[in-house]
């Protein structure tokens, strides 16, 4: 199987970035490079046909992580003290793990080999050739995410909820910063943001509901909703965004998203099916009930979008409103 030239170039970029992150002592550069690392890996995902993963990695990996890290750099310090002495133990661990990994490649099926085992398995067979029959949704990833393995996604929404609760626990009490954050009255950025915010929100809605037909879904849409509010908070000041979306309401939305998801599952219980069995929704008894699946997946993705939006916004509030130590 030939390796595309572009893949080799992108991997070269990734190595260069990883090494520069390791060596550069300016943390600001390291954070920006980690954002670029995520973006280039998103490009690699597109080359490997994982469009949903690329979308999420770009939105969540490059977007949210980089913004949070930069705010934390602003709160702490963006200089790294010179390394005391080169540590041998980490290199040993890395090489040992690498050794086991490369030993593992001895019997691995070749990259992209259609006869590889996972492409032959019943699971893949069912997902690719029977998911449309059962849910009338072209994007197989959305069907698998929300319906076949919907329980995993419930667990994942709970992970986002846990992160929000954990950050509320740790940074909950907003310390009034001694030095009020200086208002950056930059009219040009303000006008630009005002022009962009409505389209970001519109595109987020498009992504939320387009998840059935193309790459998209709850996670990416939730992050983009939050990105619009974060942009507003960055350009004006987090206090203005608080007027638009008060922190208490947002905290309740985080909980409501998870409850919506679990409520859909429990409702299926009351309707006589198993947990998260959408076939019983709106059903008149026929087994593959695409309409029930449609409604179930729609509601579930809405729950995910709500939780992710509110959680990312809570993270931004808790970090941005934190007074400088």
């Amino acid at each position, binding site marked *: 199987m030939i390796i595309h030239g572009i893949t080799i170039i992108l991997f070269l970029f990734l190595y260069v970035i990883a090494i520069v992150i390791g060596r550069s002592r300016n943390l600001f550069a390291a954070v920006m490079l980690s954002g670029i690392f995520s973006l280039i890996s998103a490009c690699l995902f597109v080359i490997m046909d994982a469009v949903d993963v690329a979308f999420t990695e770009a939105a969540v990996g490059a977007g949210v992580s980089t913004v949070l890290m930069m705010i934390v750099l602003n709160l702490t310090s963006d200089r790294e003290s010179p390394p005391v002495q080169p540590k041998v133990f980490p290199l040993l661990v890395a090489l040992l793990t690498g050794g*086991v*990994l490369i*030993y*593992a*490649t*001895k*019997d*691995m*099926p070749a990259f992209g080999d259609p006869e*590889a*085992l*996972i*492409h*032959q*398995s*019943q*699971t*893949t067979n*069912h*997902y690719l050739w029977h998911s449309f029959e059962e849910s009338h949704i072209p994007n197989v990833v959305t069907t698998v995410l929300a*319906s*076949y*393995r*919907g*329980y*995993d996604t*419930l*667990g*994942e929404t*709970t*992970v986002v*909820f*846990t*992160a929000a*609760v*954990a950050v*509320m*626990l*740790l940074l*909950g*009490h907003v310390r009034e910063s001694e030095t009020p954050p200086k208002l950056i009255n930059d009219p040009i950025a303000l006008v630009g943001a005002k022009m962009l915010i409505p389209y970001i929100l519109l595109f987020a809605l498009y992504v939320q509901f387009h998840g059935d037909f193309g790459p998209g879904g709850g996670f990416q849409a939730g992050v983009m909703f939050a990105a619009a509010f974060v942009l507003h908070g960055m350009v004006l000041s987090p206090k203005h965004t608080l007027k638009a979306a008060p922190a208490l309401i947002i*905290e*309740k939305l*985080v*909980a*409501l998203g*998870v*409850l919506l998801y*679990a409520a859909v*599952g*429990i409702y299926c*219980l009351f309707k006589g*099916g*198993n*947990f*998260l*069995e*959408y*076939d019983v929704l709106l059903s008149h008894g026929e087994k593959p009930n695409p309409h029930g699946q449609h409604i179930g997946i729609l509601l579930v993705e809405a729950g995910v979008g709500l939780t992710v939006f509110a959680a990312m916004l809570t993270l931004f509030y808790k970090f941005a409103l934190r007074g400088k130590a």
Partner: protein
Amino acid sequence: MSNIIEHLPVLQIVVPLVAAPTIVLFRNSTLSWILAVLASWFCLFGSITMLNQINGGGEIPTYLIGGWDPHVGIVYQVDIANAFILTLLSGISAVVFVYARTSVRDEIPEAKHHYFYAALLLCFTGLMGMAITGDAFNIFVFLEISSLSGYALIAMGRNPKALTAAYRYLIMGTLGGTFILLGIGFLYMMTGTLNLEELSHAVPHYAETSVVRAAFAFITVGTCIKLALFPLHMWLPNCYTYAPSVVSAFLSATATKVSFYVLLRAMFMLFGAALIAQAKIFLSFVIFLALIGIFMGSLKAIGQDDVKRLLAYSSIAQIGYMVLGLSLDNADGLTGAIIHLFNHALTKGGLFLVMGCFMYRLNSTKIKDLAGIGKKMPLTMLAFTIGGLSLIGVPLTAGFISKWYLAMGALQAGMWWLLVLILLASLLAVVYIFRVLEAAYFGTPEKEHDVEEAPFSLLFPTYVLIGSTIFFGIWTEPMLGAARKSAELFLSSGGAL
């Protein structure tokens, strides 16, 4: 009522999972405590009914989540081992959540109570999810839920060192979790399925391939980080010492136990004897690690001045016992390991609850501050004594049963020298327990303690756990039967050596 029984496996997870966001929604401290207690009691009754159903020879039908077949969706196949661990988890949490009322009001600022209870419930949900699931990737998802809430809970300790302890635990825990994810990926790559049942049938076909061996290595190392086995234990002492007392009690009695269950499930069900048979040196290496863990943990415990840190190091030693039982790879040894998992959870949970009583009254658990406390807080000190005896493994206590089966397992495996080492390690336990007792009963405090006995709301749950170490020490049949059946299940599924 009947369909609740039928949906019991999934309700065990959904009820606490729904309770956590409801708590955050209502933001009221008392309501949060009530919801937490109700959720854990529901899970306790649920898992007891499941345990009785299976113990009575019944078979819990495979629960298809979303109504999909096993090779398409996620399923719960509850067997005796699942039910055993679930009962332990919900039992411990039922007691600890009742205890949490006064202890949390004393140690956590009022504004954060509901977040604290939500995080406690999420940790409980994550652990239950790991214990019950029949899908490999689902283990990783619930592992992350329990770990993330665990980090936040530990960081809530009053002492600022809790923050650095939580940070160190986060870095090592995430490294462990990602290793487990990598191991699951390798297994999926070679077998094309994520269902544990199908994996346990498919993996032996590929046991010789390097991919499955690498998967075995990554999953074992990842789980051992979470388990705090000897070389990977650095995070545990600080975490249990500086965490709030409720969190130390809850995590010490449940988190490492579920990781041990996952290790058991992986080593025996997934990889089975085919792989372990080839890795003879691996088993002896694990025995070697377990022994070092036991002796290093006990010796370090002797040298500690803070009783909570002493108990944390003793936890590392007790985990060494469990892994020792696992690596003996015979029925008695494995039964000893599983029943020790149960007994140690009760004992260590009870002892940390006692520490919570001291924290409530004296705001310190240092040995010099506990000097002469036996006179002022006799009931609390009595509870510590009983717990200490069970830790040592004195007859009539639960600790003795597990030491007994470990010894039988060692003899059956022909390693009589192991018997001597187990007894020697128990002596070390005697030393560090009596150091505390001697200070508490015979020590003379610098200034007279003006404290009175711990409140009833703290003492009653403590005595429930401490009493249960005696109860299960005498009436061993229910739990021991379940432990023996689980051991036989593990050995038979993997195929004994």
